[in-house]
């Protein structure tokens, strides 16, 4: 997949992974991995970016005697997911158009 496109999609994936409950880095990777390839070195800048643009907040909590960072989605983050769904409808229309043309050729 094109890098730029994938980058944008991964942002939304990470937001979706923390939508229902707060999650931590490793869990986010495990949740997303079955759907799209993501590594730790890709995740780190994404989380950093999302935090800077205030789509999520971070808190540290103790786990097994060490600290773990938990990520919490903000309202702006939820809005971003909704915006993505809207955008996707347009993309699906384009997809329909592209594939329809294919059938007419046959």
């Amino acid at each position, binding site marked *: 997949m094109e890098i730029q496109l994938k980058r944008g999609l991964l942002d939304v994936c990470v937001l979706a992974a923390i939508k229902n409950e707060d999650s*931590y*880095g*490793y*869990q986010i990777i495990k949740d997303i991995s079955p759907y799209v390839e993501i*590594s*730790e*070195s*890709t995740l*780190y*800048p994404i*989380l*950093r*970016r999302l*935090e*800077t643009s*205030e789509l999520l907040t*971070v*808190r*540290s909590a103790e786990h*097994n005697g*060490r*600290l*773990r*960072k938990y990520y919490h989605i903000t309202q702006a983050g939820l809005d971003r997911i909704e915006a993505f769904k809207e955008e996707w409808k347009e993309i699906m229309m384009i997809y329909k158009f592209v594939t329809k043309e294919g059938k007419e050729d046959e």
Partner: protein
Amino acid sequence: MNKEQLLNALKERLAGLPEEELKRSLDFYSEMVDDRVEDGLSEDEAVAGLGEVKEISDRILEDIPLKKIVSEKVKKIKPERKLKGWEIALIAAGSPIWFPVGLALGITAAVLALTFYFVFWILIICFYVIDLCLVLGGICGVVMGIAAFAKGLGQYGFILVGAGLFCAGVSIPFFFLCNIIAKGMLKLSKSIITGIKSLFVRNKKDAEADRRNESKNESGSKTAGDKEEEPAAKIEDKTVITGDNKEQPVI
């Protein structure tokens, strides 16, 4: 490589980053290793699964603006001792000399950077222009060739049409070659920028020590240098906890 070694390697590569940014990255990767170990992997496996150290540090650098890195570097260069009165006087007196020199050096560096940037893009454009010329040349050749035929200059017509078709034919693979070159150049420029960033950020002494260690390690175990850093690393880990919640957004 174990966790300690990974964190030290990262620290060395990212030494010039703002403290807070460095701690954050180290924390993240430390947590990642711990979570993987908790999931049943050995520490070495966990670290190996995270990928190359260079890859990790490059990803971190990519997202931090060059401006921030440079200004951090400048902050760290600040003289460690206070200047004496006569030194200040001397510097002030010498300003007619060093000020223009410094200014000239600065301007030269800026102009060089700008030139490099322009040359880079113009080079890419040139390739496409060449391709366009081939296409146009091809069309002209064919048209002129036909015109030559019409005028009864058959032999020139053949040459013109042939050359025209040749140009047009070459232009097609050349176009794809252009695309490959452009893509390669873009990749190159990206890695040059990351390279510049890591030049600023890398701790030189550590890098040299590391190189020496590497050659030693081939025969023996880790050197004392790594162990000395241990306590410092732990202290830093603790400070992260408090600084955590009041982070400033990156500019």
